[in-house]
């Protein structure tokens, strides 16, 4: 099983929020509106929206990184012109969100939100800084591994995916109930980006690669 079960008691917030009844399988219906998806115009996303290090007066503190990859369908075909949104904590592990109470310094030069459209090969590319790990109150001494949130559309509303990208070799993986909610070890690996020297730009930024593969649409079955 690829996706985590919504009821994953190790992640405490699921206990009162996961539906208790199984989802109702919709019978094949070629007219179902969920088989279509918004189409994005290029004017809707600015060129700088994909560079999270240039959204303020100064540069954010932290390790500058490039995160790039492709959005693919389950047959490996590129999904073009689709919207990819990312958001993350700053280098100290703090979000630019009023609700984040972690006593780590905010960074006035870092909002931590970006978006772009995929190109003809399904490729996206962000410049950002490596987010920090941070504590949360799920259980005693709970820490989230460093991650970047991803939101991806695809060609059908049924493919809509929100996920999190992790960094290779993080020692927090075994202790994180959100990552571990994915039951299959090979599936969990697909949440982990790969360090890539070819993406890395000399004397400027380390590079990570992360492909996002969306699920089948019912019409593909």
């Amino acid at each position, binding site marked *: 099983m690829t996706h985590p079960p919504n009821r994953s008691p190790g992640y405490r917030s699921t206990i009162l929020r*996961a539906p208790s009844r199984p989802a109702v399988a919709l019978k094949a219906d070629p007219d179902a509106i969920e088989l279509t998806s918004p189409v994005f115009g290029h004017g809707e996303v600015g060129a700088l929206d994909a560079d999270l290090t240039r959204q303020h007066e100064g540069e954010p503190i932290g390790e500058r990184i490039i995160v790039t990859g492709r959005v693919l369908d389950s047959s490996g075909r590129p999904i073009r012109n689709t919207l990819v*949104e990312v958001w993350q904590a700053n280098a100290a592990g703090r979000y630019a*969100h009023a609700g984040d109470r972690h006593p780590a310094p905010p960074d006035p030069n870092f909002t931590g939100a970006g978006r772009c459209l995929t190109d003809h090969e399904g490729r996206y590319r962000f410049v950002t800084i490596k987010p920090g790990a941070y504590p949360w109150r799920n259980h005693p001494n709970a820490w989230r591994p460093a991650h970047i949130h991803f939101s991806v559309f695809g060609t059908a509303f049924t493919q809509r995916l929100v996920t999190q990208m992790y960094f290779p070799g993080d020692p927090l993986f075994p202790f994180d109930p959100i990552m571990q909610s994915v039951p299959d070890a090979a599936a969990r690996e697909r949440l982990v980006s790969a360090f890539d020297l070819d993406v890395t730009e000399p004397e400027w930024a380390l590079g990570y690669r992360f492909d996002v593969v969306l699920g089948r649409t019912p019409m593909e079955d």
Partner: protein
Amino acid sequence: MITPSQTVGPFFGHALPYETGPDLVPEGYPGAITVTGRVFDGAGEPVPDALLELWLGETGTRGVLRRDGEGVSGFGRCATAPDGTYRFRTARPAGPYLALLVFARGLLCAVATRIYLQDGPDPLLDALDPERRATLLARADGDVHRFDVRLQGEGETVFLEF
């Protein structure tokens, strides 16, 4: 091969919602309706940190993110208020229902449902017992259609798998 889903978490408010996200049509648009309601958890408490996405089935001409065109956008996004309320201003869909996705802290996968603006013969509705069917029907009060999402427990909304 497929990338697994992970929760949207609690801290998306500075990233995903956008100013005109809940307004699929501009103010005063002829025939506009309001679709509003609240999101509740299994204890009946409001969910103050959910994100809802509405889809009409066509992109339309108004623009998805910038809303600088004329007419209708087919996509809307709205974060819930502290009391769990969401509110969209939209055009009527071509068919009887709107597609809705709900993301929240504590939901490892988004849940999908439909808001039916009118009851009637329908392959999905007809396959449900009356109590469950009722969870997919909005209550109309003039141009305002009320639709609550109950994630769990009594009156739990029917969620869909495609």
